[in-house]
């Protein structure tokens, strides 16, 4: 009898400890990254770090401008390319499609989101890069290797698309049927109902989804790395190579131990990513959570 109770107590305490540990891990990651990037903070002023694009690690000059700019540029292209088809598809699935179509389509979305990033990288290298280099860019610029902002944006767009679609479908279906019926009963068509009622009501959810997708795009490393060109100059056009933050970290981990300040700089990049993504994620999750609660 006693042994059972003892076991019970041990189990409870272990579980509570593990739960607390999980919260601590989050803080721990932030703290560790911050501590390791401290030298970079102290040796350079923050403005120079963030806004100049002088990247000469051997000289101890760390201007992250190119990388930040590349990250933003590539993410922007990705969202522009992914959002319209994603919301159209999500609206179609939630408002028009029959149950059979929906059942058929959900594995499609699942598969797209399950394909590992490295596979997207391979595919991008084999299809998108040559297409840009040979067919698309010649119309606009003199020369492009194909490894470019555009390639990164396209690959990233396909990667974040299933995320946007699946969350938006959840957001739209959370709207109670009665509101749709109220609008339809007044004589509105489906599209009018969507325009004036559904989108209006789901606006917070839509924004939260976009924010979530952006934070996913910010952090994507391998796929973008394989198609973006990894060139440290600021890209002048969409067809130029770029160098987003995650790619920076991934490419240089080998050398970082040998150059003073390099390791700290890369940790700074990781810390930047971490902070931005945590904030974006936190806010959008809160919004989405509240929407879900309202629908009950």
């Amino acid at each position, binding site marked *: 009898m006693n042994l059972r109770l003892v076991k019970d107590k041990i189990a409870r305490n272990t579980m*509570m400890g593990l739960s607390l540990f999980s919260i601590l891990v989050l803080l721990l990651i932030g703290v560790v990254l911050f501590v390791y990037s401290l030298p970079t903070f102290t040796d350079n002023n923050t403005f120079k770090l963030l806004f100049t694009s002088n990247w000469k690690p051997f000289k101890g000059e760390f201007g992250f401008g190119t990388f930040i700019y590349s990250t933003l540029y590539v993410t922007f292209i990705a969202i522009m390319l992914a959002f319209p088809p994603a919301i159209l598809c999500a609206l179609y699935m939630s408002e028009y499609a029959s149950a059979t179509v929906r059942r058929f389509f959900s594995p499609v979305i*699942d598969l797209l989101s399950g394909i590992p*990033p490295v596979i997207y990288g391979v*595919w991008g290298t084999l299809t998108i890069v040559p297409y840009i280099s040979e067919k698309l860019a010649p119309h606009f610029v003199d020369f492009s290797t194909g490894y470019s902002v555009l390639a990164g944006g396209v690959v990233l767009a396909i990667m974040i698309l299933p995320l946007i679609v699946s969350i938006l479908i959840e957001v739209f279906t959370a709207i109670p049927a009665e509101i749709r019926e109220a609008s339809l009963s007044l004589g509105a068509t489906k599209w009018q109902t969507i325009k004036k009622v559904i989108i209006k009501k789901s606006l917070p959810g839509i924004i939260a989804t976009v924010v979530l997708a952006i934070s996913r795009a910010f952090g994507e490393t391998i796929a973008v790395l394989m198609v973006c060109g990894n060139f440290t100059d600021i890209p002048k056009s969409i067809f130029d190579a770029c160098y987003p933050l995650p790619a920076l970290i991934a490419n240089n981990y080998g050398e970082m131990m040998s150059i003073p300040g390099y390791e700290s700089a890369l940790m700074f990049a990781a810390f930047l*990513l971490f902070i931005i993504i945590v904030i974006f994620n936190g806010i959008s999750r809160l919004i989405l959570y509240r929407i879900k609660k309202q629908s009950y």
Partner: protein
Amino acid sequence: MKNLEERIIKALMVFASVTILMVLLYILYIIISKGLPSLTWDMVLKNPSGGFYLGKEGGILNAIIGSLMLIAGSVAISMCVSLPVVLYLNFIRKKDSRFSNVVRFAFDILFGIPSIVYGAFGFMVMIYFGLQASLLGGIIAVSLLIIPIMARSIDEVAGSVTQDMIEAPKSLGATKYETLKVIVRQISPGITTAILLSVGRGIGDAATVLFTAGYTDSIPVSPMQPAATLPLAIFFQLSSPIEEVQNRAYAAALILTIIILLLSFSTRYFGRKMSKSKL
């Protein structure tokens, strides 16, 4: 006029959806067509010889076994963390309590952290403890990555356990701990789904293992040795100037994709089993 707008939008919607489907099929087509010619028995059963980057002979057994070992270790560790935590949050604390929701929120954020950050963090932890790039390092990093994924997935099924199910063992005199054992059995298809999902995410991820697991031509015999993984096999060998090496990369890509497809279908199968057992 009303009608025209509606028809155009509807056509665009269908077009968007079909395009998405086409993109998926195109990706699968490319991967299969590039990888299939190179998928021989040799490829699957031999290690690369002559160095993975330049050696023409051999296959990718090192990566296949390496990945399997790594993900097995990570799943084991993650289960030890996520299952107890989720059980605690749902059945020992109240499902809706402040504590549970705070931990859930923390997990949600951890869920969204990109794998490169886990890789960098794992690397820092390894350096601190004096570990070299190794199987163990990779396991640590990937575990960090998949714990939130597993936790969220188990949390979803744990939420579906009814009050009666929890009270039945209690009224027979069982302790909380013993009740939990019964609950775990009840939600085991859901746990399987969680494992499958985590494997899917963890096995294909390159950024976590990039710094932490190293890379090698051979299969590790101890956790302290570096391990090759499928994603890195693709990444490192794709850019080789030698065609045979590139083919190894394509074969690895195909194998990885096949694994993911199998996992995806199994997940659906177990997911359906779970909802059937609920009723």
